[in-house]
């Protein structure tokens, strides 16, 4: 039943799990090179000895016959089968064989197991659990009946377990094996004393002392196995320790403060067992089961995460911040299975069944049992469909077009990155030989941009707040550092960031994924750095884990046949489980309390749907609908009595482009004021905080709400009345096209097809200090007759000429310049934490600017102007006019601020709304207070290099009056301001 159910379901759910593709990717590595431990494909390479390899090696072997995905499925089925067997034999240590059978049925529908398999996809972890459960009875029999063949089989399973998931071995010793050994010793005492009631503490202690050599033996064996089996892992941990800052995980949160996480990491794993928790505790804490009870209680507590301070106190801050605590809940729920099985047997056909039938009737009994079974199936169905209800992954992406692109024309000579792929990024890596700068295994990464930030990976940085976006910006602004040239984007959220950081959007691939390219990035060197390990370790890594599996199979199957008859005599001493009257009352009260809580939650959910009762709640829900683009739902919140149609509403929304309308996520919503105008009229002032890939925005809104028939509705504000003057616009425009390779030949580009670097001039570049942060500000002019893509890099040096910090101009630069066009730029040196500790910002003594160009055929749009310009109290007001024939989705304004003829600051501002043709929108831009800025050094011909040559070489091409022409710009009290415009336009 388990194989049928999980096997069928996993083929559908596998692609939506968090970790399945990661393990498949690891498997693909071993399939390509069994003894190769260095994987170049993620980050700048990482070692495969950072994760126990058994599961991945099995996938690799099977993939040679059936492919990677099916190999994963096949091993998962083996793990499921082993798990059910393990539950059965483990349960027989605590409950009767029939109850153990019930435990197996419950294990099949176990919500924690379903979650681990079908939502998390943690194949090594569930493989480890399966092996551990099978190992425990073997070790029990070895201790209790002194049969050394069980020691051999138990140890062989532990060896496999370590090779599959060492964390399960380490914690399994404490939470599973120790209680099992304890109960084995206790059973010996019970045997000798003819009943547990006759066993005293001293009897147990004496027995423990007598059997201590065996305990020491098993301890030493497990330690030896754990060390030797995955010795390269320990070697790597010691020689290359993790420097990653703690990454937040939902399992460490307080489940009261964040009920959503509580549902995922507490309610779902416990599932139906929650209703019967006191009963389970009562059974587990029987005298014989005391050790297991302590284990269970500790696991239950640790699984509560940050809800109480106790887990952190117990584990220590370091371990608490590194471990994910959902594993404790998972293990706890597995331990509870035998006792839950015992309960269900009792209810179905045991003592409890007799009681119910006697007191309430057979019909009630049947209904009760059926109800519980249906609830279990319902919960199982909910979990399996969880990803459909609350998608945790983007829709499935066809990888072939991406892999084909990377594998042809030498595109794999650079690194790539994905955005918005979810965990499918690992599947892409498994299907291409190209290298990615990102990855999905943060324990092994060493890139300072990632290790200094609490971010899982770059590709979902928008969900990680400002830290995530900062990490992404580091890579986008300095792609040369890691030879990053291509980005595959599945999320429009990142489009403004990519565009304004100088990335060029190419034609989308056949699968609809946007492809972005960065010009002028050097390719990867032919030889890439690699951390090698001694050959002996490589051989160990490639032979011991798989060898342990083969050995375990051989030993366990052969000895199973030999010991088949023997097993019938080697049964555990199962206590009789019965509850007193008080206990039963507690159980019933608890059940009713939980049931009432569930009903209450349902009522609250239902009540929340009835939004029109409260105007403030309505405004909240309206913003939520707008944020998630549920426009039809948002429409229903409006007062429709004025004749507003859905068509009109969505039309006006569709016309409202801009960074907020199309590329923003709502961060917080603040209700500033609620004014009661009359009994049926309310005015609500709202401040909405949005975050986008480029900056944060705050918008202020005033909502008028009407009450009709006891329901509140939003009165839709009037749409802008101004209309453009012309029905048809005719604007001459220019198109550029670079041929690239003119001959259809694969291989390197001919030199005749390489265009000259356009000429550039940097009239000014100054080193500025603002508080303790350094910046380089300047202005650059394309003095060539070809359109040019510009990269500006600045380097800070100490007095001895040692490099301290390199950074590029990112969004504060118009990267693509037409002939004779200028742009200000600003380079910020504001992330010293990613540099080695030996580098001190106080050592900055000088700087050099490197500017380079390449010809671009980017589409330009310059048909815009700024008007009604006014500077008041450090605020620049004005209007941006789009007189052309395309919509400017995100207009950008650069302000170059001068003081006493020295350029001191360059600021960028993005307007929050798009501007359609022949329309204009107001803007307000806060200028920088120049008084807090200190000009450290001005650039000169020696420290400004353009395309590798000193600046004066470019100056030879300038007209004589170039330096005499004064900048015409806005005049302020402090100095002048030069303004430049740019914009993201959809062509």
């Amino acid at each position, binding site marked *: 039943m388990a194989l049928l159910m999980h096997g069928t379901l996993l083929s559908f759910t596998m692609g939506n799990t968090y970790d399945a593709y990661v393990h498949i990717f690891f498997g693909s590595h071993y399939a390509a090179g069994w003894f190769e431990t260095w994987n170049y494909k993620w980050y700048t390479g990482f070692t495969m000895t950072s994760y126990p390899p058994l599961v991945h090696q099995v996938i690799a072997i099977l993939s040679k016959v059936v492919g990677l995905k099916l190999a994963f499925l096949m091993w998962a089925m083996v793990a499921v089968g082993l798990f059910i067997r393990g539950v059965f034999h483990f349960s027989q240590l605590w409950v009767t064989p029939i109850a153990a059978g019930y435990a197996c049925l419950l294990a099949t529908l176990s919500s924690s197991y379903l979650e681990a398999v079908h939502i998390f996809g943690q194949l090594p972890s569930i493989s480890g659990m399966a092996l551990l459960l099978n190992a425990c009875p073997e070790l029990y029999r070895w201790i209790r009946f002194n049969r050394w063949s069980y020691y051999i089989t138990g140890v062989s399973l532990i060896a496999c377990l370590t090779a599959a998931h060492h964390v399960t071995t380490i914690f399994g010793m404490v939470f599973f094996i120790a209680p099992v050994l304890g109960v084995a010793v206790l059973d010996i005492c019970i045997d000798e004393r003819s009943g547990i009631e006759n066993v005293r503490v001293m009897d147990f202690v004496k027995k423990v002392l007598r059997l201590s050599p065996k305990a020491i033996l098993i301890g030493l064996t497990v330690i030896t196995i754990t060390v030797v089996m995955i010795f390269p892992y320990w070697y790597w941990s010691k020689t290359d320790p993790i420097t990653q800052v703690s990454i937040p995980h939902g399992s460490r949160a307080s489940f009261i403060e964040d009920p959503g996480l509580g549902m995922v990491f507490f309610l779902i794993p416990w599932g139906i067992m929650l209703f019967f928790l006191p009963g389970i505790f009562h059974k587990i804490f029987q005298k014989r089961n005391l050790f297991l009870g302590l284990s269970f209680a500790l696991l239950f507590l640790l699984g509560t995460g940050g809800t109480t301070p106790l887990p952190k106190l117990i584990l220590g801050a370091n371990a608490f911040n590194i471990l994910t605590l959902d594993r404790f809940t998972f293990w706890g729920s597995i331990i509870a299975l035998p006792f839950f099985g015992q309960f269900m047997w009792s209810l179905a056909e045991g003592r409890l069944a007799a009681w119910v039938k006697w007191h309430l009737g057979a019909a009630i009994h049947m209904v009760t049992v059926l109800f519980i079974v249906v609830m279990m199936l319902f919960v199982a169905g909910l979990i399996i469909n969880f990803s459909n209800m609350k998608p945790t992954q983007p829709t499935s992406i066809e990888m072939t077009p991406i892999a084909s692109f990377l594998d042809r024309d030498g595109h794999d000579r650079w690194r790539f990155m994905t955005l918005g792929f979810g965990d499918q990024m690992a599947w892409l890596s498994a299907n291409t030989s190209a290298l990615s700068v990102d990855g999905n295994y943060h324990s092994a990464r060493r890139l300072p941009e990632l290790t200094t930030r609490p971010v899982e990976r770059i590709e979902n940085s928008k969900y990680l707040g400002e830290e995530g976006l900062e990490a992404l910006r580091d890579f986008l602004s300095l792609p040369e550092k890691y030879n990053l040239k291509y980005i595959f984007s599945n999320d429009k959220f990142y489009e403004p960031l990519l565009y304004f950081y100088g990335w060029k959007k190419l034609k989308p691939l056949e699968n609809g994924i946007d492809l972005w390219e960065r010009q002028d990035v050097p390719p990867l060197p032919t030889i890439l750095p690699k951390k090698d390990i001694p050959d002996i370790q490589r051989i160990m890594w490639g032979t011991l884990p798989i060898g342990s599996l083969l050995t375990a199979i051989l030993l366990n199957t052969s000895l199973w046949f030999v010991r088949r008859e023997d097993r019938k005599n080697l049964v555990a001493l199962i206590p009789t489980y019965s509850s007193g009257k008080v206990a039963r009352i507690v159980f019933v009260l608890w059940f009713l309390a939980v049931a009432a809580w569930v009903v209450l939650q349902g009522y609250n959910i239902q009540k929340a749907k009835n939004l029109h009762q409260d105007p403030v709640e309505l405004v909240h829900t309206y913003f939520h609908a707008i944020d998630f683009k549920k426009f039809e739902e948002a429409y229903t919140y409006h007062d429709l009595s004025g004749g507003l149609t859905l068509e009109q509403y969505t039309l006006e929304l569709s016309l409202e482009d801009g960074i907020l309308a199309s590329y923003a996520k709502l961060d917080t919503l603040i209700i500033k004021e609620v004014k009661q105008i009359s009994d049926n009229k309310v005015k609500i002032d709202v401040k909405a905080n949005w975050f986008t890939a480029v900056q944060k925005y705050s918008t202020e809104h005033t909502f008028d709400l009407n009450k009709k028939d006891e329901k509140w509705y939003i009165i839709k504000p009037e749409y802008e009345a101004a209309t453009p003057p012309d029905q048809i616009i005719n604007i001459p425009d220019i198109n550029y096209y670079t041929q690239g390779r003119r001959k259809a030949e694969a291989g390197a580009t001919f030199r005749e097809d390489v265009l000259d670097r356009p000429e550039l001039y940097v009239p000014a570049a100054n080193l500025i200090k603002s508080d303790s942060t350094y910046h380089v500000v300047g202005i650059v002019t394309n003095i060539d*007759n*070809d*359109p040019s893509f510009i990269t500006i890099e600045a380097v800070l040096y100490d007095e001895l000429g040692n490099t301290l910090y390199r950074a590029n101009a990112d969004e504060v630069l118009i990267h693509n310049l*037409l002939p004779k066009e200028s742009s200000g730029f600003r380079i910020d040196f504001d992330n010293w934490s990613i540099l080695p500790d030996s580098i001190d910002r106080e050592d900055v003594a000088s700087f050099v600017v490197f500017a380079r160009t390449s010809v671009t055929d980017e589409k330009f749009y310059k048909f815009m102007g700024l008007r009604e310009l006014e500077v008041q109290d450090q605020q620049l007001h004005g209007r941006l006019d789009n007189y052309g024939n395309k919509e400017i989705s995100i207009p950008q304004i650069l302000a170059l601020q001068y003081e006493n003829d020295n350029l001191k600051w360059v600021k960028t501002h993005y307007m929050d709304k798009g501007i359609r043709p022949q329309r204009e929108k107001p803007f307000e831009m806060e200028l920088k207070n120049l008084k807090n800025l200190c000009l450290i050094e001005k650039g000169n011909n020696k420290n400004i290099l353009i395309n590798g040559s000193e600046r004066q070489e470019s100056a030879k091409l300038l007209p004589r009056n170039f330096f005499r022409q004064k900048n*015409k710009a806005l005049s302020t009290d402090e100095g002048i301001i030069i303004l430049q415009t740019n914009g993201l336009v959809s062509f």
Partner: protein
Amino acid sequence: MRILIAILFTVTMILSCQEPEVVVIPPPVHIERANIKLESLGGLVIGNSLTVTVITQKKKSNPINLVVSNDLVSYAIDILSDKRVELDGQYFIHSGLYTIAAIHNDSIIAKRSVTIEPGPMKGPLDVYTGPASIVTGSKQSSMIVTVPSDSLGNGFVRSTGVVYEKLAADQRSKWRPVKNLHSVFEFRSGSVAKKTLIGVSKQDVLANEQAVIETPDWPANFSIKVVSHHPFADNRQYLRLQTDKIVDDNGNQIADGTEVAYQVVEDYNVIALYKAITIDGVANVYIRNPSNPASWLIRSYIGFTSVSNGIPIAFKENISDLTIKYDRFTKRLLIGPLKSMLGQYAPDGTIVTLTHNGKEYKEETLLGEATFDLMNMGIEQKGNVLINVSDLEQEITL
């Protein structure tokens, strides 16, 4: 016993104090000299075989080790003295100086140098041209470097020259010698912006066509003119300006896509900045009319250098009169209908400003009218309010 040991020790010490041994250095061994005789059928050219004979005074029983080497390769073969040995042409695929040495009994008994010449020049000629675009007006030059080679890739240290031919008013073809493996042809830009094609050849050995683009220089000063102008402060309309054909000092039309910036000055303050691009040397810009009457001076720039004439432009008031009605019952202030100078409604979206107690409220007109709902705005229905449209304003008492 101790005394015996002491005596033995003493004797040993005495005996070890001796004069150092004298080592006799043997006299030098006489090295017998030999001659290397070379014969070549096709001449000393790459790919041709060479016959070598090592002539010794006495016949050697042991083979002689013949080493043929240059800076790139080294071959060693065993031969017998006074025997002719033919070295195949594959030993001499590189042109240049070879050393042939005969070694016998670890001594060099003969040594000879021979220069192998490259084979005939083979096409296509390897040509490097750069920069591929240069600015007119003799400001920049471009260079073509030719590296002729034979069929095996060997260069020519010196040779008769290479011919460069380009179309120009001042010259047809130029001949440049090959020195140190290459030939160079450099030329400065002319005054006319064009694409210059250059052919490179040496007799029957040719190269691919080379091209250098001579691009226009910096734009000269230029002029702008008004193309269309609605002389009223109707901010829905545009003023269109156009440049003349912008050229450089040599009369070359500037590159398409050159950015032209426009600056609008009112009362000595810059109030607007617009951009346009040139197509066929001409840039068109559309500047929105102001909302209020104004007098502007507009000038245009390219980069920090080229500047145009200044054009004065005036805009008259667009709204003819301001009508205001206050409905005390509904507490609404109705502005309009506002009429424009031609008798039509003021453009939709015209901003009407209401000022009350220092606070401003704005509404847009639709079909010439704007409405202020004072109750909804929280304005007390008593006191004065100021209504302002464009340059017109009126104060009313509620």
